[in-house]
């Protein structure tokens, strides 16, 4: 039978069976409204508060600073638009980076239309933001610095603690999009000077449609979704109790297994990187080799194009991605790969493989074996390879 190797865990993950188990009663048994007076609703309320507790302590803060949302995109939108709105009297300048997720970049573009100014910082060839650059970009009217904790495409982990320290020295709020990093690497909002943090359930083997925004106590942030008095009047909408309960369970498991997963996944990651570098010519690793998410592998294979590679991998039962998953639909090469300095035609041939803790070495061997063939086949069809070979290889 054909293998099935799912290596697109940065896009979305399989929900853990324990998580589904935890959610189930909240669909058909404990379904009451969490804001209601009756006891039956109070059980839901309790479940929500328990989840808030688990999540608060997972990033070193109080439960009451955690606000549930429908996912990472909503959290990012809320953080940026909320700060922009609440602090506009202080200034209208925001600092972010060129490699943020579109949930940040498109929100910034929207804010620019509303009269805000946004500085988009460059990154180096590994995708690292320089704290020095952050410092230089600060102006008297800067109200927010937003730098992602780890990049979703190339896996580079940013120097969040340094950037947070700079933000706070200057009395500027600091937001981090931790959608990829949360529950994958340790995060402490106090130590790292983080004022706002976005996360999403489905990236950590939790359910889709649920996420949270951490908001430091005392921030003036208003509602993004107006209406009922849920989430201490800051986020309206009947609470997604099963989603919250599922997120709770997913976080609990992810935190308990983090050390072990980091160890296992980084080993596998480095094994896969080594095999590809050794066995496939003209392959370039994207992202920082060490400051890197444990589960992220991203390569460019010169002379070939990403989609063709993905379809051929798919035919071998291997799920990977090219560029950012949320924007396939767009034909432009990834803005992240362009930002680390790759030329267009090379950025086109990128492949992202992201591990889960279920992946085995044998599966990775299977992947490399197929990848070698696929790359060779596509190169034999590529006019770019033909030109290159004529010039350099004959």
């Amino acid at each position, binding site marked *: 039978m054909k293998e099935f190797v799912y290596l697109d865990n940065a896009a979305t993950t399989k929900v853990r069976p324990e998580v589904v188990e935890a959610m189930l009663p909240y669909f058909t048994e404990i379904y009451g409204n969490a804001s209601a007076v009756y006891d039956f609703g109070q059980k839901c309320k309790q479940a929500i508060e328990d989840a808030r507790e688990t999540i608060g302590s997972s990033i070193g803060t109080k439960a009451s600073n955690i606000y549930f949302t429908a996912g990472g995109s909503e959290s990012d939108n809320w953080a940026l638009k909320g700060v922009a709105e609440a602090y506009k009297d202080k200034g209208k300048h925001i600092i972010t980076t060129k490699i943020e997720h579109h949930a940040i970049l498109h929100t910034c573009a929207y804010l620019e239309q509303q009269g805000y100014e946004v500085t988009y910082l460059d990154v180096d060839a590994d995708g690292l933001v320089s704290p020095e650059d952050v410092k230089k970009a600060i102006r008297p009217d800067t109200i927010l610095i937003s730098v992602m904790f780890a990049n979703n495409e190339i896996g580079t982990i940013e120097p969040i603690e340094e950037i947070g320290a700079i933000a706070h020295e200057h009395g500027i709020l600091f937001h981090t999009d931790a959608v990829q990093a949360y529950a994958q690497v340790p995060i402490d909002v106090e130590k790292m000077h983080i004022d706002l943090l976005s996360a999403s359930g489905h990236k950590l083997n939790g359910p889709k449609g649920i996420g949270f925004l951490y908001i430091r106590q005392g921030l003036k942030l208003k509602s993004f979704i107006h209406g009922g008095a849920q989430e201490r009047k800051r986020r309206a909408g009947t609470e997604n109790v099963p989603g919250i309960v599922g997120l709770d369970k997913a976080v609990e498991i992810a935190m308990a297994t983090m050390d072990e997963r980091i160890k296992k996944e980084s080993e596998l990651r480095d094994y896969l990187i080594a095999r590809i570098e050794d066995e496939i010519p003209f392959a370039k690793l994207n992202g920082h080799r060490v400051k890197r998410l444990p589960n992220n592998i991203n390569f460019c294979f010169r002379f*070939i194009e990403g989609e063709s590679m993905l*379809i051929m991998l798919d035919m071998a039962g291997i799920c990977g991605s090219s560029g950012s998953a949320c924007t396939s639909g767009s*034909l432009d090469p990834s803005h992240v790969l362009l930002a680390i300095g790759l030329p267009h035609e090379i950025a086109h041939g990128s492949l992202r493989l992201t591990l889960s803790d279920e992946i085995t070495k044998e599966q990775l061997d299977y992947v490399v074996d197929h990848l070698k063939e696929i790359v060779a086949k596509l190169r034999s*069809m*590529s*006019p770019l390879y*033909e030109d290159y070979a004529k010039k350099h290889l004959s």
Partner: protein
Amino acid sequence: MYSEKVMDHFQNPRNVGEMENPSGVGTVGNAKCGDIMRMYLDIDENGIIKEAKFKTFGCGAAVATSSMATELVAGKTVQEALEVTNKAVMEALDGLPPVKVHCSLLAEQAIHAALWDYAQKNGIKIEGLEPPVNDIEELEEEEEY
């Protein structure tokens, strides 16, 4: 996402390769996505295309349309080959998803570029053939909201 025919031509592309002494060769790039296609034609003294070969750096649709285009032009006269439009290629493939329509233009333009090269080499004029453009771009069809 793709029709069975597209998948077939993608998995088993017909006529991939180079040609030693082509009658005409054309390389075109797609400005919209940065993909590239090269088409080789072997044309006999009666102006009949005996063989077409291609190489493509591009998405699944680009590979499949190249493959189909080489099949469609083979055996046709130079003049008939001009009628192998991107629409004809798409129809032969049972259609493409809307975001992939531009890919089929690569194939049409690559044929045209190869024919132009052939015409230049032989000092002939082909009725209705325009000089190739380096970067082809379809008219933006903004989705209506």
